[in-house]
């Protein structure tokens, strides 16, 4: 009467014995790695964000709960940072897509030397961002920047301008560098999406007398829309995280002009205020990861099916 076949406990034990440990051994290395350098630090960052830790007095950090969050929302640099981050995202991603689309459309046609042109287009993306930043700093330099020289000769300015010293122009220089470096990725992805459109559709449309514009509007664009939407979303998320180029070109800009949230957190870290820096970073992360969770779930599903 005690052990009826199908009793829950027995079934569970039986199922446990049948579990094959082998897949877990394959997963183990990367799981350990990511646990150590991603998961645990993230939890630690959340914890740190709730203390008043500084790098110098780490051992005496006090738990202060959400005080850092309250401080952030009263902090003008933080609040302006929200706007600056958004501005950075929109300008950079908008320009990247606007420039990438025509290029991708162009590369979709077969022409002589296409492989070479495509490779040349991708080059800016492969270059170390630090180098890109250096090159742009060099080009816009107030004393011997080639940009000034060109503008002078075109008669657009009267004398050399120190572009990086003005908030507005420094923003555009930095954005320009980022756009220059980031557009190739967009081109490649849009191009890949374009190449999934079967050419028969275009041929059929041509037979029906559709103009190029109509073909674009009714065939190409609807087909691209989902890809481009995803692309914009992801790229904006990534731009919100970006620090490298902004930091190297402007170190935050004249004053705080170029302080996006990510840059702000970074600057706080270098000033040793790691409790507050963590809080800012975690706030940023929560917003971004909420947005990216949808994509990740979709990705995990599509990859595993």
């Amino acid at each position, binding site marked *: 009467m005690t052990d009826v076949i199908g009793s829950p406990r027995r079934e569970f034990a039986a199922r446990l014995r049948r579990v094959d440990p*082998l897949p877990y051994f*394959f997963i183990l290395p990367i799981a350990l790695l990511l646990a150590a350098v991603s998961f645990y630090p993230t939890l630690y960052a959340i914890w740190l964000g709730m203390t008043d830790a500084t790098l110098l007095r780490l051992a005496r950090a006090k738990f202060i709960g959400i005080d850092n969050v309250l401080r952030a929302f009263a902090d003008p640099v933080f609040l302006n940072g929200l706007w600056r981050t958004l501005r950075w995202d929109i300008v950079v991603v908008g320009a990247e897509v606007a420039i990438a689309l025509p290029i991708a459309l162009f590369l979709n046609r077969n022409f002589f030397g296409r492989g070479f042109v495509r490779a040349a287009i991708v*080059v800016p993306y*492969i270059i170390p961002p630090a*180098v890109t930043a250096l090159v742009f700093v060099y080009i816009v330099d*107030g004393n011997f920047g080639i940009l000034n*020289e060109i503008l002078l000769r075109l008669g657009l300015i009267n004398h050399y301008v120190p572009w990086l010293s003005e908030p507005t122009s420094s923003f555009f220089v930095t954005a320009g560098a980022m756009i220059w470096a*980031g557009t190739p*990725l967009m081109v490649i992805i849009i191009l890949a999406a374009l190449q999934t459109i079967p050419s028969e559709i275009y041929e059929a449309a041509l037979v029906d007398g559709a103009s190029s514009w109509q073909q674009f509007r009714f065939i190409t664009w609807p087909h691209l829309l989902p890809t481009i939407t995803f692309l914009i979303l992801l790229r904006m998320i990534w731009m919100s995280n970006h620090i490298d180029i902004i930091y190297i070109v402007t170190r935050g800009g004249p004053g705080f002009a170029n302080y996006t949230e990510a840059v702000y957190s970074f600057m706080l870290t270098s000033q040793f205020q790691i409790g507050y820096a963590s809080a800012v970073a975690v706030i940023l992360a929560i917003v971004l990861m909420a947005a990216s969770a949808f994509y990740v779930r979709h990705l995990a599903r599509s990859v595993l099916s």
Partner: protein
Amino acid sequence: MLVYSLAPLVWILIASITPELRADSWSSGRTVQFFPSQPTFQNYIDLFANVPFGTYFINSTIVATGTMFVAVLTASLGAYGFVRFRFWGRRTLLFAMLMAYMVPSVVLLVPLLVIFRAYGLINTYPGLILAESTNTAPFVLLLMINYFSSLPRELEEQALVDGCSRLGALWRIVLPLAIPGLVAGGLFAFIAAWNNFLFAFLFAATDATRTLPVIMRLFALGEPAVWGISAAGAVVTTLPVALVFFLFQKMLISGLAAGAVKG
């Protein structure tokens, strides 16, 4: 369009062979030439003489190669596990790992800084390699999962039927087939690690361990007063990555299209 793409690069190349371009503020009246009247390679020589550039180059190489191996090893094993087996927690674990990929580096800066200090990993190669893995390992994982999914199961099944162990099948059948994918993943990891600035800047700040992108920043601040040297440095920093890219273009570009998200 080509002009747009290549112009800044051509300029930096020219700059690197320009002699003696001083960053003096009082010479603002002087005009900039498009091409130097006396091109020279002296800047390259000065580069290695005045700045411990050779050390930095070696450091970058070590870190990038190390990251490549760590990322490819862990990610390919993990990818194989995810693709070839169905096990409890499969979806959740993958989701978790991909979320790790999405964690902004900013968030990790502080904790890794504290943790590394505690374990003495600051300014060491292993420390930097570990840090870079946060970005590269999940991306290579994604790449390898895509890749393994496209390999036919039949060959392994055949080997298993013939009496091979799972591991044996992996070693003898899958591995040779997987080499193109592994190479692609490795290259991406290498490039990402070579180009990385943020972690290198924070976790390898001494002259002995500094990597190239960090020097780029110092140059941007006007460190050596001769811009020609900075430009030469930029060219040398870019060369390995550019070389890798040109040799493996097709592979890299299709890999980008397939899985690149974070860049």
